[in-house]
């Protein structure tokens, strides 16, 4: 069992996510993103959010939030072709980026003796889109700055968040 104070997101899981972000983004974008503080409270902008749940020692969820400009730049770098923000492919790109990241998170957790399985990504796009968390969930935000722009991850522990996501092999 992962131990942590009741309101804190487990540090060992956050550490695995940080390591996974650095490795994954370095391999896709050529350099790891810089950890930063993104303060966009009260700012309105279009974004894509992709959530993946993890099942295992402790259920928790990871949400990648990418503002419009970053999403377009990331998509070009990731796929090698232009993807407009409003296209159906944009959801696919951000979902796939989260999926690749989540695979590395599972590998990083395994190195820390924590077993986890990941769900399929669920993607939402819109102005100020935000995914609701379960009551009493411990949360943590990891913000980054990169050559493609700013983006961040929201981590949250909750029993109910897994209902947001789809289990591989089950009906879409």
């Amino acid at each position, binding site marked *: 069992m992962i131990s942590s104070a009741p309101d804190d997101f487990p540090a060992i899981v956050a550490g695995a996510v940080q390591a996974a972000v650095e490795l994954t983004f370095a391999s896709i974008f050529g350099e790891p993103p810089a950890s930063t503080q993104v303060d966009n409270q009260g700012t309105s902008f279009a974004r894509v959010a992709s959530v993946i749940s993890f099942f295992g020692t402790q259920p928790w969820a990871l949400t990648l939030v990418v503002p419009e400009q970053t999403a377009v730049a990331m998509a070009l770098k990731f796929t090698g072709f232009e993807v407009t923000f409003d296209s159906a492919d944009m959801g*696919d790109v951000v979902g796939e980026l989260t*999926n690749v990241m989540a695979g590395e998170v599972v590998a990083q957790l395994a190195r820390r003796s924590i077993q986890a399985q990941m769900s399929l990504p669920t993607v939402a796009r819109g102005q100020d889109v935000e995914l609701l968390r379960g009551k009493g969930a411990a949360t943590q935000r990891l913000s980054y700055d990169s050559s493609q722009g700013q983006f961040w991850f929201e981590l949250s522990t909750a029993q109910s968040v897994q209902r947001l996501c789809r289990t591989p092999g089950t009906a879409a």
Partner: protein
Amino acid sequence: MVALKALVVDDSGVMRKMVMKGLTESKLAEFEFIEAVDGKDALAKFDPKQVDIGFIDWNMPNMTGIEFVREIRALYGTESTGVPLVMITSEKTMGKIQEALDEAGADAFICKPFTVAELQSKLKKSVERAGIRRLRRERAQKQQQPSGGIFSKLFG
């Protein structure tokens, strides 16, 4: 160069495009692609007499990639073992790699994100095997076809 019929299975349309683009740029062979959106769709489109090689994602709705590989190996037996099935997935733990290669019957394992250079080095043998199988099949089909014989002599 042999044109291979490649089944590309991924629930992400963008990832299917990326796999097809990477394979084309690898120049390992000429490919003709058949796309499938999940294991169930792939199962319906898989014919060992038509498909030369398969590239399969792991985590998909309805039927996962690993379930698809197990199903194909069970359904077609030795006929399917000649068709290389390659997992292209974000799963990267040793347990998952072993499960795919040792238990399910996949031929190769490629972790996302991949580069064209990785495709070239990890797929060389599988593509060669698919090419040889394809050539043998074409040769066998030609031998089975009537050579014309008396009819060609009679009717030119």
